[in-house]
């Protein structure tokens, strides 16, 4: 329909808009939690930590520390009896009667300077009685292992987590589907493998930091680097026995999260100390060493796989047993075990499944959520088994995957059917881009070259009722302020949120401001910024808020102009009528309304839109069979492939080309989507080639950047290609689903498969360091060492 408006209807959705926070980040103006200035009422906190993996606390003597000038408070576990935790309340804020890992917090000090706090912490004397530690998850799960949590059955636990009382198993997730025993007889080929995936750490460049202040009235304010301000408000308030609205969390920009700043960890320590020095702000900033083993780590995994297929390469059965090395407390980790359980087959249709996924307490650092939430660990072994099975029946690995990978309507391991998915398209495009089937010569005589590929799937792992909300307010200048409770942890959530608000309301992207930092007193509720759920879940809330505000605008204008709602639209910040061709910028009425048509009085008023979203159709699973209608909201799927060389003289892997392809449903911002694919791929490469927390007798032997190597600019593939596939999610905003975590899920096995293609050697787990590869080549007789 013709109209005189010069405004072409432009939607920023699907466009690579520049980041909304880029300018402040490149000028140094961006504020992170440690940048907030508190003046002279700031105290510095230090933590006294257990030097033992497992011991009983006999006595704590803080008298020397308290006598040190400048020390304002010392707190210990006896001051805080409550339990805390996300899915299983299994930890105290400070240890009370026993310590369960090297680094477990025993006491906290607040002092006027950081130096005094550190000195005071060293003056606190703790007497321990050593206990036998559990340093292996399989041993921990066995009868006769020392019990680390004798009170397990008394802990408060989420309904879908199944601890086994009087064992170290804090969750046992099972799948029993079909009949594996009979199925093995039908198999042409069966393989059995054991993999060990080591602990690694998230290594955000910004260490954890929390600043807490408790008023004389008892009201608490916490400023911190956080993916989960609302969950922290909820859990810390509950543990301290105050109501949630007396606890306020203010969360500025996050300097990298990757899961480590989700849930509650060190933040509760700062709050607990602050309760003893009311009126002071108390800052706890983890040292880099503390970051490596007292913040969450990625759980270790010992995984057993048995899988078989028929002569045509159809997968018939899988029997998987996972022992998760959950560490000293598994309040968050129990759900990783569950996620790995319901995703145990990888992205394949398998008719007969027998899976046990055990979360096991050990005296290791606390396992927690990390980018991928169990999926990189699970896929690391599984996707190598798929290659091996294909090889056994003499089938190409891509063809094998083509036959077995999930399509829309395929049966899921938990029952129910797969939604439409672009997994096959990801597979085909990735194989084509890497030149699958073409063997390329190595670049030098002392190199061997190989290609490898892996698929992946991952669902958001969260309670079925994890909610999001948003509000939208119009200002006098017609610009739109968007309130959200999600966090930008680098992934671009604020940018994508602004794009979606702009598109759903009908205003340019540049006219959207975000009401940040997130502040639980003013911001709308968000469960947590985790699980790659924000674009999808918060996005749906934003659309609803924008439509609510839009409805108010159109109602007002239809009344003021005497026109039908259906003839009106908001385009680029201006209301237009397709019928009368009238138009009016939003700013003309956004706050002050409009005169009534008869001139007697006013209509309208300040416009504020509200929206929320919560999935409503996730069902529980049968605890004995893991079967149910709808285990999770959806799965993002994808593929990666590598073309690499192994240097025969050094064992070093050099990646020539890396390809990634993911079905994101709809790329709201294609450039940010590709940036997630690239960044995750490099983090995945780092975990495949370099990273491992070296645990020796419960101690992390390499807690520094010198001894724990992460990828640097010198470790990049020579070329990278990121391919976006878009098969829409029916309940996603514009069809979108998440992509943040997925990009490091298939990396380890794709690289392992390429290394195998190059030198014919497989390893029982990463990292595939030059040393490990060289020694294996020596043993296999591929190289013969220096003459």
């Amino acid at each position, binding site marked *: 329909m013709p109209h005189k408006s010069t405004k072409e209807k432009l939607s920023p959705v699907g466009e690579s808009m520049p980041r909304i926070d880029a300018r402040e980040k*490149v*000028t140094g103006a961006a504020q992170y939690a440690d940048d907030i200035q508190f003046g002279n009422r700031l105290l510095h906190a230090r933590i006294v930590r257990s030097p033992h993996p497992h011991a009983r606390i006999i006595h704590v003597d803080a008298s020397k520390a308290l006598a040190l000038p400048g020390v304002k408070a010392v707190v210990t576990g006896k001051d805080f009896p409550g339990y805390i935790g996300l899915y299983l309340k299994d930890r105290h804020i400070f240890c009370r009667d026993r310590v369960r890992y090297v680094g477990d917090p025993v006491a906290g000090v607040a002092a006027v300077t950081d130096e005094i706090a550190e000195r005071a912490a060293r003056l606190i004397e703790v007497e321990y009685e050593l206990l036998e530690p559990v340093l292996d998850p399989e041993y921990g799960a066995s009868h006769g292992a020392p019990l680390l949590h004798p009170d397990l059955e008394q802990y408060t636990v989420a309904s879908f987590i199944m601890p086994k009382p009087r064992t170290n198993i804090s969750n046992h997730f099972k799948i029993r589907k079909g009949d594996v025993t009979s199925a093995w007889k039908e198999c042409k080929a069966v393989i059995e493998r054991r993999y060990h995936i080591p602990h690694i750490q998230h290594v955000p*460049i910004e260490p954890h930091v929390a600043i807490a202040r408790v008023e004389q009235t008892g009201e608490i304010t916490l400023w911190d680097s956080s993916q989960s301000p609302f969950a922290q408000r909820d859990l810390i308030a509950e543990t301290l026995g105050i109501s949630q609205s007396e606890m306020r969390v203010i969360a500025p920009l996050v*300097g990298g999260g990757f899961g480590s700043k989700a849930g509650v960890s060190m933040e509760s320590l700062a709050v607990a100390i602050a309760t003893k020095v009311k009126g002071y702000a108390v800052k706890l900033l983890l*040292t*880099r060493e503390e970051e490596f083993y007292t913040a969450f780590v990625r759980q270790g995994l010992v995984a057993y796989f048995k899988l078989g297929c028929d002569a045509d390469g159809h997968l018939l059965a899988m029997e998987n047993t996972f022992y998760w090395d959950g560490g000293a407390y598994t309040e968050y980790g129990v759900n990783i075990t569950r996620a790995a359980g319901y995703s145990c087959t990888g992205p394949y249709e398998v008719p007969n499944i027998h899976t046990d996924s055990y979360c096991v307490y050990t005296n290791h650092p606390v396992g927690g959520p990390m980018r991928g939430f169990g999926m990189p660990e699970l896929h690391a072994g599984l996707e190598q088994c798929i290659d091996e099975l294909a090889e056994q029946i003499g089938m190409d690995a891509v063809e094998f995957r083509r036959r077995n990978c999930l399509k829309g309507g395929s049966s899921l391991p938990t029952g129910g059917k797969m939604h439409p998915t672009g997994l096959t398209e990801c597979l085909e495009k990735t194989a084509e881009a890497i030149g699958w089937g073409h063997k390329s010569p190595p670049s030098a005589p002392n190199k061997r070259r190989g290609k490898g590929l892996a698929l992946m799937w991952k669902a958001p792992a969260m309670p079925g009722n994890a909610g999001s909300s948003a509000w939208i307010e119009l200002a006098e200048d017609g610009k739109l302020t968007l309130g959200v409770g999600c966090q930008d942890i680098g992934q671009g959530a604020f940018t994508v949120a602004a794009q979606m608000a702009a598109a759903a309301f009908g205003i340019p992207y540049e006219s959207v401001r975000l009401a940040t930092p997130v502040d639980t007193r003013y911001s709308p509720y968000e469960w947590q910024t985790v699980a790659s759920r924000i674009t999808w879940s918060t996005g749906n809330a934003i659309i609803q808020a924008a439509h609510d505000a839009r409805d108010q605008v159109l109602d007002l204008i239809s009344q003021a102009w005497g026109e039908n709602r259906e003839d009106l639209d908001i385009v680029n910040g201006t209301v237009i009528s397709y019928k009368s061709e009238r138009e009016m910028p939003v700013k003309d009425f956004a706050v002050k309304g409009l005169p009534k048509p008869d001139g007697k009085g006013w209509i309208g008023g300040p416009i504020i839109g509200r929206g929320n979203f919560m999935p409503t159709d996730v069902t529980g699973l049968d605890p004995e069979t893991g079967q149910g209608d709808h285990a999770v909201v959806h799965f993002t799927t994808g593929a990666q492939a590598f073309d690499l060389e192994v240097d025969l003289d050094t064992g070093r892997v050099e990646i020539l080309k890396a390809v990634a392809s993911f079905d994101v449903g709809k790329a709201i911002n294609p450039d940010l989507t590709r*940036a997630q694919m690239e960044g995750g791929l490099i983090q995945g490469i780092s975990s495949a080639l370099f990273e491992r927390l070296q645990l020796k007798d419960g101690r992390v032997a390499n807690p520094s950047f010198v001894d724990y190597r992460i990828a640097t600019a010198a470790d990049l593939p020579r070329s990278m290609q990121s391919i976006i596939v878009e098969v829409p999610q029916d309940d996603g905003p514009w069809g979108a689903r998440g992509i943040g975590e997925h990009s490091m899920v298939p990396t380890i096995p794709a690289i392992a498969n390429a290394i195998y293609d190059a030198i014919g050697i497989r390893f029982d787990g990463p990292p595939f360091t030059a040393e490990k590869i060289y020694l294996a080549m020596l043993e296999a007789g591929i190289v013969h060492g220096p003459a």
Partner: protein
Amino acid sequence: MAMHTINLTVNGSRESLVVPSNMTLMRMLRETLALTGTKNGCSAGECGACTVLFNGEPVNSCMVLAVECDEAEIVTVEGLAHDQQLDPLQDAIIQAGGVQCGFCTPGILISARALLNRNPNPSEEEIKEALVGNLCRCTGYVRIIKSIQEAARMAAAAS
């Protein structure tokens, strides 16, 4: 703790400060001058988030004592833009999408500025070499490297 008076230039502004012997340049910038763009990632000279220019050379400011800065000229990330005009490196890193969480960005921009000052037309290998002391966990470096190449190209085209 002994106190010392130092005179120095920070982002073109003359400063006269009284600092304790054990204060690092990083803490002086962040706490005394409230220039919090310089980030503290490890306090051990390993991550590069606190990189600043010290008489034109990139240094980890957590490894330099404030008392060593008497009569020095310091440039931090806050000193890269002039009169609202971004440094071409800042423009380029925004355009290339080389910023994610932003915590390593100030140190990376300073290392890149030092590189382009001494070598206006660096090769990809030279850029990677200049950045190995700056850890980034989000971006995978690819877009950062592209942005430095682009800033160098723009500077060459403008001269």
